[in-house]
């Protein structure tokens, strides 16, 4: 077993930027662990442009952005251990499976930057048959940009988040015809303009307010999907179905290993300093909630690095109070406050499940202490302000959303 100062799990934008920043702050005893063959994380297989503008003032494709991050890490002499899969966390010891065998590390401080994944067909409980051609955007991207394999010819895309449009681009790249995009909600789950671009310029029908009734298969080959709107059913012929979005943190290891797990976020509870209630355990990037853009993870990585520095220099243990949010909230972070540490006017960031106008009410020990008027979209984060009221141990903060009637 090797004693190290800092272990970072995950060499995506959050993990690598934290490593770069920590290195800059003078921490050399640092190892980044990555289970894939290469560093860079999810952008490695997002073949389209749109990366790097805020971080590097450059418009890059996902793979080039990932490469740039990985190269920076290499230049700075950061120890990145590839092909290292974390298999166990117990008593502060991290156990990895690596091609050279099992390796164990005991870090003073660990940052989990494990990323997120899309919700596959299974957890959506969709009706119908089984086929290897029922996949997620992530799989499609890997087919397109890593393996260069075209798995099918005609696809239906389920969902209308930003990533769903990335699925269209990956499909286009592979020469797959997109027969339709279908969305259960009445409006698409991203900016309306994307709907019109898709319809008018790409000539792809976008159906909103439709239910995916069934995936029709024969001998494990997709034949069509059945959709319905207002009770009227229709079949769309296709040989592939792509489930997009509904990102969920890649957090099973955290759920198995730590007690203070937040099931609403599917991640560990964290303070405004990205600190969990386990000593020396930090969590940042997309594993703290659903997926946000790479640049947000990158800047979060920088920020968590400074918090890790504070922790290592002052060894302060947080004094924690919990924040609760009602069922309208799809995720929020931080989920706790360290009342020994400044809040800087900000309580938490959240997203609501549905489009709605209304107010978010902030309760401190059941007393209303603040409100925020919102016009919420499920794909836009809402920052909840906090006017400085002194907080004491055992205080409780609760957020409720009330839609305008």
């Amino acid at each position, binding site marked *: 077993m090797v004693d190290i100062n800092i272990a970072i799990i995950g060499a995506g934008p959050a993990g690598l930027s934290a490593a770069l920043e920590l290195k800059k702050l003078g921490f050399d005893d640092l190892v980044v662990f990555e289970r894939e063959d290469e560093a860079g994380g999810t952008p490695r297989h997002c073949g389209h442009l749109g990366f790097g503008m805020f971080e590097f003032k450059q418009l890059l494709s996902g793979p080039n952005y990932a490469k740039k991050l990985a190269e920076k890490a290499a230049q700075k002499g950061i120890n990145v251990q590839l092909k290292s899969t974390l298999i166990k966390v117990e008593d502060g010891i991290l156990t990895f499976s690596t*091609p050279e065998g099992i390796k164990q590390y005991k870090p003073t401080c660990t940052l989990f930057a494990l990323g997120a994944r899309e919700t596959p067909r299974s957890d959506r409980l969709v009706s119908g048959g089984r086929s290897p051609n029922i996949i997620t955007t992530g799989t499609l991207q890997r087919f397109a940009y890593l393996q260069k394999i075209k798995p099918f010819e005609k696809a239906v895309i389920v969902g209308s988040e930003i990533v769903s449009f990335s699925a269209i681009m990956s499909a286009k790249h592979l020469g797959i015809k997109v027969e339709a995009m279908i969305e259960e909600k009445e409006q698409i789950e991203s900016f309306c303009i994307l709907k019109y671009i898709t319809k008018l310029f790409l000539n792809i029908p976008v159906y909103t307010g439709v239910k995916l009734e069934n995936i029709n298969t024969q001998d494990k080959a997709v034949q069509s999907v059945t959709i319905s709107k207002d009770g009227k059913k229709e079949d769309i012929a296709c040989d592939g179905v792509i489930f997009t979005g509904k990102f969920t943190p890649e957090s099973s290891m955290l759920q198995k290993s730590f007690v203070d797990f937040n099931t609403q976020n599917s991640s560990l509870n964290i303070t405004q300093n990205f600190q969990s209630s386990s000593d020396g355990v930090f969590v940042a990037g997309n594993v703290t909630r659903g997926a946000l853009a790479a640049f947000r993870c990158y800047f979060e990585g920088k920020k968590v690095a400074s918090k890790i520095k504070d922790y290592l220099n002052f060894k302060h243990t947080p004094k924690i109070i919990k924040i609760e949010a009602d069922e309208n909230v799809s995720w929020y972070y931080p989920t706790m406050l360290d009342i020994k540490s400044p809040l800087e006017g900000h309580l938490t960031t959240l997203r609501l499940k549905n489009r709605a106008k209304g107010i978010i009410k902030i309760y401190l020990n059941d007393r209303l202490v603040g409100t925020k008027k919102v016009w919420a979209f499920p794909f836009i984060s809402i920052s909840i302000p906090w006017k400085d009221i002194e907080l004491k141990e055992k205080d409780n903060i609760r957020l409720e959303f009330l839609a305008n009637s």
Partner: protein
Amino acid sequence: MEHIDLNHIFPKRVSNFAKDELFDIAVVGAGVVGCAIFKEFCEQGAKTVLIEKANDILEGASKGNSAILHTGFDAPPGTLEHECIQRGYEEYMKIKDEYNLPFLNTKALVVAWNDEQLAKLDAILQKGLGNSVKELEILSHEQILKREPNLSSDAKGAILVHGESLIDPWNTPLAYLKKGISCGGKTAFSHKVTGGHHDGKCWELQTSQEPIKAKVVINAAGLYSDIVDAIKGTKDFKIIPRKGQFVIFDETAYNLINSIILPVPTKRTKGVVITKTAFGNILVGPTAEDQESRTNSDTVKETLEDLKQKAFHMLPALKNHKVTATFAGLRPASDETYYRVGINDEKNWITVGGIRSTGLTSSLGLAKHIFELNDKKYEKNPKTDTKVTITNISEFAPREYQKEDYGKIVCHCECVTEKEIRDACHGESGAGNISGLKRRTRAMMGRCQGFNCEAAVTQICKNEVQNG
């Protein structure tokens, strides 16, 4: 960009025996029962061929079940099913170590959730004792919660069945297949039996590829056993496929229970079970839905939702865990509740049909039974010198990735190595399609369902097949 049909990465198999080869035994159907019978006859020295319409084993009823090794405590007393379950269990215990197969003795609790069910427990206990399952105990409400602290406090009472255990539903029959092959058995995959003729001495079976000749035909065609059986000239039963839908939860839920949680059974089915699996998940199911179709194993959203709710009622903490997979299996039930096993001595035709839901446990017992039925037909020449070991992929055995020099992990959810995937692509008992690869390795079966590895696994399989 190259288009690859993911359903046909693996080539269609052809047989590797001479065209006019006359077999002692032709087993039709490579489900768990067919594989076990194949193994038995091959081991006893019979010249045996296993004929299967799909390109791999376990493509029908045997692919989807709850993976429990049953004691037979609630089997219909005095029936062949009862006999074969207990004999199958004994046989499994004899061979599991040689084959490197998993066996996890979790025990089972038959839980009564209301007074009506509570009143039935004694009858179940008596039935179990009558079925010569001796290790049974009645547990009180308090004793249940001591053993299963996460179970809903609605549990009124239970019977603890000590022998009930978990096994690997896929690599167990695969081991039988391998054993048969190593004893000289032949296989004919992608050979759909379409008809046959008995000339008074031997059978010539028509198939979708070349005809196959054998002295004795054993029909273990599962969901199609009634259709295949008609080839002998009489129609004795009808298969009524019974769909069972399942929900699998992430391994994060694994420690929520210790035992298999069984309901008080009804006449028709064992009911909805909550159990761990040998792969470290929690399984909930099955439903029991009679249907006409022999192929429709679609899942239905509302049914899956209902299964989840039933499970949450019994095990409330399960709510906090994600669903890893959903699937449905079709059990080959028949128009009667018993096994449809019989021999037509005149035509040398043996029927093994209607193996409705206990086939995984009873298969080895059935195989012994069938062999004895057919004992006088040819000379015994047992083969004792072959030894077969499979890769134990259960969560409780040392896995490949824990060893040195394994290469690298490709499927991160289930920790499947590249070497395991490559190995599973080769040989006569290798994968015949992607589902078969999944069953052999667990690749893509985890919580991300291929989000991370499907493309890479496809590439590896493609390369392995191309490069031989």
